């Protein structure tokens, strides 16, 4: 219960600090907050926007939850999201299922590059996953300007995918997939031997090793699953929302997943609520940009404030 309170407090602090920052530059904090609110949940349209944004956030959030629970620093959600989208596009000619499967495989493979470098060369995955993000971004740039460019050759984007997720009243079926993934992640972590080993490795890799767990392989598996989740996020976003790939396809979903996961205190089911909160924040920030010409970077700023506030409260709590 207390952890829930901490999360709520962190979220509230973030919003307040955002309003305060706006005030520093002459905006009225009240109007800022009200635009945030109405822009995210104030209308049917806004709500739909929030839900749409929450879906990829939920999946990238789950990606981070699984990785961090295993003690692996997967900061590569951004890149895994992108290659997931790329694979989904290419495989889309064979239908939705094949497309999403390809997305998961691609995400897992991209993450596994970092895994392999850690296993064989002791390269810290916290750095390699980030470097792979930049690599993926430019891979995407090359693809949409080059081999995958649309036939009309007008904009740097691809042709629409060969498949699409069915629409359900303003949102797409991806929402069902995302929630299912959340439940699956919970089941995996808390109801299977693999999940127990994964969590044990995350808490104490030494003790895990002494208990007979092959830590290296365990971490590699966790990375792959984590990457698959982020890849799936990309695939779902492609087939459900954007239908095409373009240069800013990932738009920070990968990094946002970290904030989503931490606010959810690394619990798979709580990630749903956390993703909704950040979905609202991003959507509201978009409205802020439209209505008050305030940079949408404020949403990224807000994510960081949430994380930092969480750290402060965790710290205060553990000192008592």
């Amino acid at each position: 219960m207390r952890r829930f309170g901490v999360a709520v407090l962190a979220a509230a602090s973030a919003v307040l600090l955002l309003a305060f920052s706006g005030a520093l530059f002459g905006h009225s904090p009240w109007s800022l907050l009200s635009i945030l609110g109405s822009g995210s949940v104030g209308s049917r349209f806004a709500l739909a926007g929030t839900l749409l944004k929450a879906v990829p956030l939920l999946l990238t959030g789950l990606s981070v939850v699984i990785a961090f629970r295993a003690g692996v620093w997967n900061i590569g959600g951004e890149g895994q999201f992108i290659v997931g989208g790329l694979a989904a596009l290419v495989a889309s000619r064979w239908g939705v299922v094949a497309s999403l499967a390809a997305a998961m495989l691609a995400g897992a493979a991209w993450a596994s590059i970092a895994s392999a470098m850690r296993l064989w060369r002791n390269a810290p995955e916290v750095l390699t996953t980030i470097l792979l993000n930049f690599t993926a971004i430019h891979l995407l740039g090359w693809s949409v300007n080059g081999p995958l460019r649309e036939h009309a050759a007008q904009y740097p984007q691809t042709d629409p995918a060969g498949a699409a997720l069915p629409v359900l009243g303003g949102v797409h079926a991806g929402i069902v997939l995302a929630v299912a993934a959340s439940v699956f992640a919970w089941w995996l972590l808390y109801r299977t031997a693999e999940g127990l080993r994964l969590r044990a490795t995350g808490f104490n890799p030494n003790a895990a090793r002494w208990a007979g767990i092959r830590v290296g392989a365990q971490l590699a598996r966790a990375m792959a699953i984590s990457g698959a989740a982020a890849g799936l996020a990309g695939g779902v976003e492609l087939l459900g929302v954007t239908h095409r790939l373009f240069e800013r396809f990932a738009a920070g979903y990968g990094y946002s997943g970290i904030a989503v996961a931490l606010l959810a205190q690394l619990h798979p089911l709580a990630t749903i609520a956390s993703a909704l909160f950040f979905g609202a924040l991003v959507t509201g920030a978009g409205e802020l940009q439209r209505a008050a010409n305030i940079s949408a970077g404020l949403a990224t700023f807000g994510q960081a404030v949430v994380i930092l506030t969480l750290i402060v409260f965790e710290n205060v709590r553990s000192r008592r």
Partner: protein
Amino acid sequence: MIHLSHITKTFGPTRAVDDVSLEVQRGEIVALAGENGAGKTTLMRIAAGEIDADGGTVNREGRAELVHQHFLLVDALTIAENLALTHLGFRFTTRRMIEREAREIIAGTGIELRDVSRRVSELSVGERSKLELIKAIARRPATLILDEPTSVLTPNETGELFAVMRRVAGEGTAVVFISHKLPEVLAVAQRVIVMRAGRVVAESAARDTNVQALANAMVVAQSPGLPVAGQLGDRVTGQPNIKAIVGVAGNGQSELAAKLRDEHREAGHIPEDRSRDGIVAELTIAENLALKAKRWNARDAARHAERMIALYSIRASGPLQRAGDLSGGNQQKVILARELDRRPPMIVAAEPTRGLDIAATRFVHEQLRAAAADGASILLITSDLNEAFALAGTIQVIYRGRLSEAMTPEEASRRVAALMAGVA
């Protein structure tokens, strides 16, 4: 000179020090004896001023230096650099300058430690112990406190240490040394104070007492099957299936245990460091017990845990208790339960009774004997000679990573001191 009066100190629910008064005069060598957990280290940390007492007063004349059991040396730096850490303000230095100063410091203490340009990581355990001693003595304290200084020394090195202690005491320093090795205590101390469960239970001049009396004071009850501290090899209780590898800590035991762990995955492994390598503190008892299982079912795991708790007399509130909340002895029981219950054909136990009280130690020995009687072959890696001789039918000595040939307990009791010191 230190005068402690009615000191109490509580950590959470445990009373580590319970109304203790004692004093040490200049030039005296006093030994503080007792089992693990008796409160000796805590009391001395209070005496040295490292931590504050909850009640009572500390009267100290001059400064007190405490040499800890676990080394506070920087492995990556050289001897000279480690000594320089204690002595500088801000200034520019060169390697030659620091090494010269280091040699001067070492010479001033009268202890021998050559080649100060060596990295601490290259030193033997005995040399590191010397360096810690040099650090402390060089600061010319009025009181010198040594915490289990001989636990990692060979008999030869122990003799050298005692010579230093006598010299330093002769120069007027008050010396206190904490130890649970009774023969040593009587060899060098003038006065012995025995602690048990946070209180002083006995105090006498060394010449007025003997090992048996001290041992009796240290424990609540003596059981006939238990080896008395200090008596070696006069009990033929060793079992054929149990092999012991003995040696002073730091001679390759950890590496050996880790190698065996990776090479014999089907065997049971009891790690040396139970809190770091043994249990996962954040998981429940049931989860810890299930770490080696192929499948997980919450209800079965809980039931299994309840069975183990009963079987191994684990003091816990239930299968869902966080393993990190258990006491050391009970954590060790959880590890034992996990490893032994599967009845593996081979068991490697590294320092299985380190830090445990008498009752827990006895329990562990019983379990190991039972497993051996059942047919398992047991490899016991320990620095406790009594334990080795009480349990094993075969003994080997490890020194600097190499094993001696296998010996019978009789043969070992003759040669073990020499082998442990590296003297063939």
